[in-house]
């Protein structure tokens, strides 16, 4: 770091404050000086919270964990975009050098019926866990481990499955979709399993179960805008949604009930 005071920025922040799930909530204006361009966005929020503590105020609640861009906990809508303006970047990896002194930054929680706000910028993303619980796994017959090369997997499918598995489940797809659809998340989880031999066996039933749960939880429908792909911090492709649609259709056609 090592910057001096002339390097720091003064920012105007508009942050969503909401006491709890029942509270109506509102945007609150804050002014923050001394923000280093080297800070991450979360460090800037920490600085604001430190200031609030000094002023005997209530700190702003927000989700965060690894701060390395891989846990999927940070979840802010920054100036109208999930995780802010930088492509394929989580909020924790977004740096204040992307902003300039005097900027007004609007910070809001993810907005979706299925993601109720718990407090301030924290939302309950338990809906994603429920979708996974509905079928995002492989029913494994336990036993002795097989020989490492007993099941051969083509390089292309291995890569595609890994690309899908890069999803960190942060919910930026839901937040950025104009319909609050969870299809990118669900399709990434379906794809990572459908592309590999162990997961392919149950793929159709899994897709039916996860899609049914997704619908039940009140997520919107996909309108193929690809805004989710554009704002996904891990660059998950909507090609996965097409795969999910295909798996669903195959399942619907082949279903006996």
């Amino acid at each position, binding site marked *: 770091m090592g910057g001096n005071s002339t390097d720091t920025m003064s920012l105007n922040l*508009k942050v*969503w404050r909401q006491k709890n799930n029942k509270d109506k909530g509102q*945007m609150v204006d804050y002014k923050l000086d001394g923000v280093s361009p080297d800070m991450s966005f979360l460090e800037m929020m920490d600085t604001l919270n430190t200031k609030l503590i000094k002023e005997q105020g209530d700190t702003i609640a927000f989700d965060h964990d690894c701060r390395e861009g891989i846990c999927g906990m940070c979840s802010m*809508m920054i*100036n*109208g*975009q999930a995780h802010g*303006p930088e*492509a394929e970047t989580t909020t924790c990896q977004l740096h204040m050098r992307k902003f300039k002194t005097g900027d007004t930054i*609007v910070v*809001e929680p993810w*907005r*979706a*019926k*299925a993601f109720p706000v718990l407090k301030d910028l924290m939302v309950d993303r338990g809906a994603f866990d429920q979708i996974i619980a509905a*079928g995002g796994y492989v*029913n494994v017959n336990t036993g002795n481990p097989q020989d490492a090369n007993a099941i051969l997997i083509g390089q292309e499918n291995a890569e595609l499955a890994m690309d899908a598995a890069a999803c960190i489940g942060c919910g930026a797809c839901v937040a*950025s979709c*104009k*319909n*609050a*659809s969870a*299809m990118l998340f669900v399709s990434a989880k379906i794809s990572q399993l459908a592309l590999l031999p162990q997961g392919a066996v*149950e793929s*159709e*039933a*899994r897709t*039916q*179960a996860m*899609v*049914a749960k*997704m*619908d039940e939880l*009140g*997520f*919107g*429908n*996909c*309108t*193929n*805008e*690809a805004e*989710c*792909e*554009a*704002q996904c911090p891990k660059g998950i492709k*909507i*090609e996965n*949604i*097409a*795969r*999910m*649609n*295909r798996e*669903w*259709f195959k*399942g*619907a056609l082949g*279903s006996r*009930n």
Partner: protein
Amino acid sequence: MSSKRKCSPLSSIGKKQIMGATGLLLCGFLVTHFVGNCTLFLGPAAFNKYSHALTSNPLIYLAEAALLGLFLAHILMAIKLVIENKKARPVEYHTYIKSGRGGTFASKTMPYTGIIALVFLVIHILGLKFGTQYSTTIDGIEMRDIYKTTIEYFQDPLHIVFYIISMIALGIHTSHGFWSAFQSLGLSHPKYMPKIQLASKLFGLFVVIGFSSLPIFCYLQGGH
């Protein structure tokens, strides 16, 4: 996961696939309608004979019913999707901007361009199919002179302007809808998708230029 599957055609994916399939079939209708209407360029006899062949065939009622079914399914599904999608985000964002890397003007305006196309459809049918009735005799057969009705209808510049504006809306609608249908039906492949997306844009362009040429042609026939 349960072995009992829950695959309602009205699930989120089912609805999108109904939208996609009906949309693609309606695109097919646009193509045949255009090709048929190109007989206009060949003169009154060709156009009237084409129209007579269509309307005198008893199968026309079946075709019209199927077409009505496609439109109804497409429209009702669209209304259901729009309502559900509104419900999925009960609290709007204070600030919400597109990244510029995802949605396009066409994708963002689908419900609006769809409504314009629907209004057009009603006015179009009322003005032409149920428009002024003239009759003519070609090769000894008495038939409706739909050519005269059409030429007359498009002497009004307002009709032409409304027609072209509607075709621009429909062109924008199909430029997103065409490729979108492939995506919804799961027909996506990294090798073919860019070509399908290009074809989608070209299809939209075809709708605008192809159909707009018809009323302009009719207008130009007016003095003769």
